[in-house]
C-alpha cells in the first residue's frame, strides 16, 4: 500500500504538460484527480518514475456553451459536471452519470479527463460519452486534434491518446429536452457498475460488457427500424463479450444488459 519511489512535477498549463511529457517520455504519467492512478500505484500495478500533475491547471476546469456544443475542460471534477446547470439542461445524461461516480470524495477529486483517459470499461463517464457520441479534444506537440468516442476507446484501459498527448476538452452536442436513460447496476451505492446501459437519441452503449464501452448496435438498428423498447432491448447483449468476476458471470451480465437497456429506453421515453 506504499507506492514505488517517483518524482513529481507540476504543470501550470496544457502546453507545459505536453512539454514535460516530451521531456520524460514513457517514464512519465499525468496525474489529475489521482483517484485511479494512485490506487494502482499503491498496489504497484503502476510504477511511473515521474508524475506530471495537471490537477491544478484551472484553465482546464470549465463547462461552457460553444456553438452547438457544450465544452467541458479536462480537469473538471465529477462533482462540477454533476451539478453544472448548463450540463443538466443541455446534456443531462452526462451530469447524471457523473453524479453516480463512486462517493462524494471521489467526485470531488476525480476529473472527466482522467476518467476518459483511464478508460475503465466499467466506468460511468466513458459509457456516457459513447452513448452521447461525444468528442475528445487532445493536445500534443503538434497541436490539437479531435477524436470521436467510437475511435477514442480501444480496449481495456487503452485509448487513442499518444504518449505525449493529453486530453484538454470534451465536446458534446447540445440536446435540451431530448429523452435519455442511464441505468447503472451496482450492489452498493458507491460501487462501479456491474453493468450499465446509457441511451440517448437512438444510441445505446453498455458499460462492463467488454473491454471498452460497447455500442449495442443490434438494439440501435432495431430502434431505427421502428422496434419498440422491449424487442430492441432483447438484442442488447448481441456481440458483447463481457468478462466474469465475483459479481457476475457472462450469462448474468448479458441478462442484465437486456434488462437495463429496456429500462434505460423506457426512461428515454421509447415505448415498449
Amino acid at each position, binding site marked *: *500500500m*506504499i507506492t514505488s519511489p517517483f518524482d513529481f512535477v507540476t504543470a501550470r498549463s496544457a502546453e507545459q504538460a505536453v512539454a514535460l511529457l516530451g521531456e520524460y517520455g514513457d517514464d512519465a504519467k499525468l496525474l489529475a484527480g489521482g483517484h485511479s492512478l494512485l490506487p494502482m500505484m499503491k498496489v504497484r500495478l503502476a510504477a511511473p518514475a515521474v508524475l506530471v500533475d495537471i490537477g491544478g491547471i484551472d484553465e482546464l476546469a470549465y463547462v461552457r456553451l460553444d456553438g452547438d456544443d457544450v465544452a467541458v475542460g479536462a480537469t473538471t471534477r465529477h462533482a462540477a459536471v454533476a451539478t453544472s446547470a448548463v450540463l443538466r439542461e443541455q446534456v443531462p445524461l452526462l451530469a447524471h452519470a457523473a453524479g453516480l461516480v463512486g462517493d462524494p470524495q471521489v467526485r470531488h477529486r476525480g476529473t472527466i479527463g482522467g476518467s476518459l483517459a483511464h478508460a475503465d470499461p466499467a466506468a460511468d463517464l466513458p459509457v456516457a460519452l459513447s452513448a452521447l457520441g461525444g468528442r475528445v479534444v487532445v493536445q500534443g506537440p503538434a497541436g490539437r486534434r479531435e477524436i470521436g468516442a467510437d475511435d477514442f476507446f480501444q480496449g481495456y484501459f487503452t485509448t487513442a491518446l499518444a504518449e505525449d498527448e493529453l486530453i484538454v476538452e470534451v465536446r458534446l452536442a447540445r440536446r435540451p429536452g431530448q429523452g435519455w436513460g442511464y441505468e447503472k447496476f451496482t*450492489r*452498493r*451505492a458507491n460501487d462501479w457498475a456491474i453493468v450499465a446501459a446509457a441511451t440517448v437519441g437512438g444510441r445505446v452503449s453498455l458499460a462492463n460488457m467488454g473491454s471498452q464501452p460497447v455500442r449495442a448496435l443490434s438494439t440501435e438498428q432495431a430502434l431505427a427500424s421502428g422496434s419498440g423498447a422491449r424487442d430492441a432491448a432483447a438484442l442488447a447483449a448481441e456481440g458483447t463479450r463481457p468478462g466474469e468476476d465475483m459479481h457476475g458471470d457472462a450469462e448474468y451480465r448479458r*441478462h442484465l444488459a437486456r434488462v437495463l437497456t429496456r429500462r434505460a429506453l423506457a426512461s428515454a421515453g421509447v415505448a415498449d
Partner: protein
Amino acid sequence: MSILGTRVLRTEDPKFMTTGGVYTEDLVDERLTGAVYVTFARSPIAHARINGIDTSAVRDSDGVLAVFTAADVTDTATLRGMTRDINQEMTQTLLASDTVRYVGEPVAIVVTEQAYQGEDAADLIDVDYDPLPAVIDLHDAESDKTLLFPEAGSNTAVRYGPPQLDEHLFDDCEVVVSREIVNQRVAPAPMESRSAAAVWGEDGRLVAWIPNQGAQGTRAALAAMLKVSPDKVRIITPDVGGAFGAKFGADPEHALVAWTARRLGRPVRWSETRYENLMGMTHGRGQLQTVTIGGRRDGTVLAYRLEVLQDCGGYPRIGTLLPSLTLLMTPGTYAFAKVESAARSVVTTTTPMGAYRGAGRPEATAAVERAMDLFAAEIGMDPAEVRRRNLLPAFTEPRNNGFGALYDSGDYATALDRALEAAGYGRLRAEQVERRARGDVKALGIGIACYVEITGAGAESGDPHENATVEVHPDGSATILTGTSPHGQGHGTAWAMLASDELGIPVERITVRHGDTDLIPEGGGTGGSRSLQQGGAAVRQASQELLEVARDRAADELEVDARDLRFDVDRSAFTVAGVQQAAVSLADLAGKERLFVRAVFTAPGATFPFGAHVAVVEVDTETGKVELSRLIAVDDAGTILNPLLADGQRHGGIAQGAAQALLEEVVYDADGNPLTASFADYPFLSATEVPSFELVDMQTPTTYNPLGAKGIGEAGTIGATPAVQNAVVDAVSHLGVRHIDMPTSPQTVWRAIVSASEGNA
C-alpha cells in the same frame, strides 16, 4: 433521580470527534524514540513447501537493517490447538519454516529505518516455493486427499458431539426436510488494522502497545509465544478502532515484533496494510451446515438435526473451537422433542479462523431459523405460525436446553409477538399477496428470526467474574480501573454512570482506565458481550463497598455512630441525621487517606439474551437485486443501563448481520488465491445500503447480577442475518424458490429464480 437507564451522551465522543484518539500507529512515546519498522514478507501461494529463502538482495535495499527468517527465530513457542482435544500435531511456527498454508502467511521479517522502505525491501526476498495442491473446498478437506499436516494423519482438527447419529431421529415425522446451508466466511475488517510497538527495558521487561480486546489475555498470549514469564510483559492498550472478536489475545505477528525488538535491542513498530489485514487477520464464520428438520403437518416440529463442517483455515486457532458454541445453542428458542448435533473442524489452505461478533452463536441461529422456514414452506404454513407452535413457553427458572446451556429465563413468544406487531405483519403479508397478484417486478419478502444466545460465559479460570477498582480523589473526582477493554462500546460512559449513581460524583469527573497490565494485572477483557454484566457489576460493587469504607471513616471523623450517617448522593457526602451542618464529603475523606476499593464480581453463570427480528426486503425479480427496506428488532438484554449505548450496539450489530446476509464474503479461487483482499473487492456494507432500524424495547432483567443486565453486543449479528436471509427467500418463494445461500448477491438470487422456474428448486 438516578441516571441509570437514561440516555447519557458518550463522554468518549468529543475526543474521537475532535483531536482523535491515539491509536498504536500514531502513538508518540519517549520509550519508542528511534524505533525501527517491521514489514512481513508473506506467502503469495496457498500451499507450498519452502525449499529455501534467499535474502541476499534485500540487504542492499534502502534503509534495511535486518532480515530474519524462521531459521533465526528459534527461541519462540510452537503453536498448537488451544484445547487438548484438537489434534496437537497441527503445529505452527511464528514464521513459516518448511511449509506455507495460506496466502498471507508470514515468511520473513524485514526491518527498516522507515516504514515505507519495508515494502520495497520485502519484494526482494526470494523464496523458493515448491507448490502443493490447495485445499479450499470443505468436503475436499474432509476427504483427506491432500493433507495439510501429514504428521497429523488427517485434516480433521477436532470433532464435537456424539460419535454416532441417531438413525431413528425422524421416524415419527410426517414431513422431513434436509438441506446443506452455507454460512460463509467473512472478514472482521475493523477500521483500525493490526499494529504493534514494542521495546524491552533495561530491567529485561517488555512494554508492548497492541490494539486488543483485553490486555491481560494479550499479555498471556504474547508471553507464551515469546516463552517468557507473563510478569516480564507489560501490555498497554491505546485506543482501539474496532475489533469484533479478532483482536483477542495476540497473533504471531505481534510476538514477532516483540521478538525483533529484543533481538535488535531497540524499539520496533509495525502496522499492517489493509491488504495484509484482509489476508492476515483471522476470519470468521465459515461453516457448511446440514440441517434436517421433521414433524407433523399441523406445524409441530418433532426432530431437528444440525451437522456442522467448520473451516479452520490453515492453522487451528479459535475458529476451530467455535462449532462447540454452535452445538451448545443447537435448539435455540424451540421445544423440539428430539434434537441432535455434531461438528467437525477441518483445516484448509486459507487464512485461519477466529472469533467474529457472535462467534458460533449466529451460526446456530442461522441454521435453525433457516430450517424452520424450510419446514414451514414444506407444509405450507406461515413461518410465524410455525414458530409460535414450537417456541419454548415463557420460563423464569433456569432450564437446561439439553446441550449444556442453562438458559436463565426467557419469553420468546412475547418477543416474537412484539416484533410482528411492530412490523405490521398482517399488513405486510397482505401487501405481498397484492404484489404477487399484480405481477409486480419488485417482490416483497418478510423474514423472521427468533433467537436466544449466550453472553458472559464462564472463563476457563472458573465462574464468570471481573474486577474493578474505584478510587475517590481529594479534588472530588474519581478513577475507575476495569479489567474490561472498551474498543468502541462506551464503557467509559457506562462505568462512570454506575459509580456516579452510587457516589454522587458527576460522570464528567470520573475517569475510566483500562488496558495497562501493570496498573490492572487481572481482567477478562471485552468479548462475548460480558462487560456490563460482569465488569459493570464489579464497578457497582466496588462503589458500594467504597461507601462502606467511607462510612466508617466518616463516623470517626464526625465522632458519631456509623448507623446515624446518611449518604447524601447529591452532595457526595455523609451527613448526620438531624444535624444539617455536620457533613463530610468523600473528597474530604480522600484528602485524609487514600480512598479506594477493589472488588471482584462473580456471576452464577452465563446469561441468555433473546429476541426476534423481522426483516422486510424488496427483490427486483428481473435482476435479483435485494433492497433491505425495514428491519424491526426486539432485543431483550435485560435491564438497559444506557439506551443510547445499547442502541448503538444494536445498530452496528444489525448492520453487520445484514451485511453477511446481503453482501460480505471472503472468496478464494480454486488455487487458494484470495479474491477479496482489498476494499475494492470485499463488499463491506455502508450506511447507504440499510434503512433506519426499528428498535423495539423489551427488558426482562436477569437475576444473575444486580444490574439485571445481559449482553447486547452480538444480538444484531445473531438476529439480523437469518431474518434478512429468510426475507430474501420469502420474497421469491412464490416462484418456487426454497433456499438461497448467503450472501444473497443479485446474481445468486437471479439464478435461484431462473432455476426454480425451470423446475429445480
